[in-house]
């Protein structure tokens, strides 16, 4: 019961926060991207945290989503809302296609094969100029603001859409985690052979999660495209700034937990911005350097993620209560 109250309180704060920020300003943009990256990391968490398949290729699905909805608007004037589902569908298919050859791969083999898949998608987007505009990238057309056209003059609605998306994917994550599927995924993660022998269809479960994760990631790609307005293959299919970053966010926060990715994003995105703000006018590379140092420090401090700060606080709290 207490839990629920806490959760509702957090959501309420999150819902009010955007209103306090200037609707055309900088911080609301940062907040929007923070929420978006939290959602992306949460989706990654389904496969990376529950199934322990460290995917480093989620940019592939993300980019598919961004491109699908944007191309549909540009070429056919179809609303990004519909494009989002079209992108999700294609993202799911892509997840299936990559899941089949990588199914048997374990651990780092899987990670690096998916990394390659992300790169494959990037090259395709770069080469298929007639469809994607090639290396030059695509701009989301500016249409008169309306909810139906997913177009707003200000960033505020985008922030709310990102918040809702985050809540939805978090609920999905938590539902999977607690369900039979969650237990099966943990079993597969720790010992696939034993999992099979006690009756878990490892292939099926892996495919299911891969597809769920692919669909959701692609749908978030649409949200991103609508906020960022312009993107090119290097942006949305980027290993460093999408694939590895979402994994990093989830891991820094606490992989396999529902709160982890949110904590991770709340930390990484604003800190990165802050470093850029504070140090990037100085010597070139300084802001990134400091960011890297902070990253290392945090991992050394909490190798199992920020979430463990709560765990130890809780432990101290309950110890006090007991004594």
């Amino acid at each position: 019961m207490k839990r629920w109250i806490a959760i509702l309180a957090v959501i309420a704060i999150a819902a009010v926060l955007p209103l306090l920020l200037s609707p055309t300003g900088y911080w609301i943009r940062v907040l929007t991207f923070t929420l978006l990256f939290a959602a992306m990391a949460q989706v990654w968490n389904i496969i990376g945290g529950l199934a322990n398949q460290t995917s480093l290729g989620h940019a592939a699905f993300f980019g598919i989503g961004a491109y699908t909805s944007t191309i549909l608007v540009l070429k056919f004037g179809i609303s990004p809302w519909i494009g989002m589902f079209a992108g999700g569908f294609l993202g799911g298919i892509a997840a299936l296609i990559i899941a089949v050859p990588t199914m048997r791969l374990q651990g780092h083999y899987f990670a690096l094969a998916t990394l390659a898949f992300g790169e494959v998608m990037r090259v395709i987007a770069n080469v298929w100029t007639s469809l994607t505009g090639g290396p030059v990238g695509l701009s989301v057309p500016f249409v008169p603001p309306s909810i139906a056209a997913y177009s707003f003059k200000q960033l505020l609605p985008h922030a709310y859409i990102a918040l809702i998306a985050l809540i939805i994917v978090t609920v999905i994550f938590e539902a999977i985690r607690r369900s039979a599927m969650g237990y099966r995924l943990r079993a597969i993660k720790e010992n696939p052979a034993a999992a099979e022998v006690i009756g878990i269809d490892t292939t099926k479960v892996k495919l299911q999660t891969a597809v769920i994760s692919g669909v959701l990631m692609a749908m978030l790609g649409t949200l991103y495209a609508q906020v960022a307005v312009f993107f090119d293959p290097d942006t949305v299919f980027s290993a460093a700034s999408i694939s590895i970053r979402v994994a990093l966010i989830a891991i820094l926060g606490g992989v396999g937990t529902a709160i982890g990715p949110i904590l991770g994003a709340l930390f990484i995105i604003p800190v990165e911005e802050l470093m850029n703000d504070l140090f990037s006018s100085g010597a070139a590379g300084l802001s990134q350097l400091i960011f890297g140092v902070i990253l290392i420090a945090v991992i050394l401090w909490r190798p199992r993620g920020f979430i463990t700060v709560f765990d130890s606080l809780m432990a101290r709290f309950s110890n006090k209560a007991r004594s």
Partner: protein
Amino acid sequence: MSFLQAIIDGLLVGGVYAVISIGLTLVYGVMGIVNFAQAEFLMIGMFVSWFAWAYLGLDPVVAAPLSFAVAFGIGWLVQGQLIARVLKAPSVAQIFLTVGLLIVIENGSLLLFGSQFRSVTTSYQTMSLSLGALFISVPYLIAFGMSLACGLALWWFMRTSWFGRAMRATAQNPMAAQLMGIDTALMYKIAFALGVGLTAFGGAVILPYVTVFPGVGGQFVVLMFTVVVLGGLGSVAGAVVGGLAVGVIQALSSLFFPIQLQNLILFIVFIFVLAVRPQGLVGASR
């Protein structure tokens, strides 16, 4: 003829891919972590060798041992001071520690050395041997020779020496290795330092034909991963086979497809090889 030329070219660059990747596979093989910062040590190796060339007048290939030594020292510190602290943490924490390291090294060298693109001029930079209608680039050939020698030496060392044996034992079961009297912490340090040292060595060797700047690692990092995974993670022989295979696949693909698709073809082949042999070309099948 162009086919033969492509094979030769592919093997030559492949040998170099092999040596820069051997270090990565060694680090993985012993510590079980994928070192994302590995390519940064390539950059360090290139810088060391560049400075040796610019200020001491050394040929980059001659300076390669110096690059090795510097990277070895840095690797020793990094492993002992940073990575050792998270050895008990989940392996993702270790991996992402190396991501942090990547950012720090790249931007640190941007601060330290500036953003200029630096390259060396050597007496042989435009030399080549001709064999009938075939060309064999001299800088590539030198790099290839150094790489292969280095790879073979390491392979032999790991196979036959007590040291190599101890290193492999540590990789497979650190607890039991300690019971055998092996100082596993030391092994990790040496493995990491040796691994990044070798990559730096490779960096020096390719300097005669590659430009160095702080971001140069980014051009090689995915290639290095492809090489070690294709060959079989953790296998030194695998890195050699993987490197040669990647070189040849790239060279051959450019005969039949636009060069723009070079990496696409490479990655598709890569994913398919893994689908058939999940443990890589040379990895043990278990």
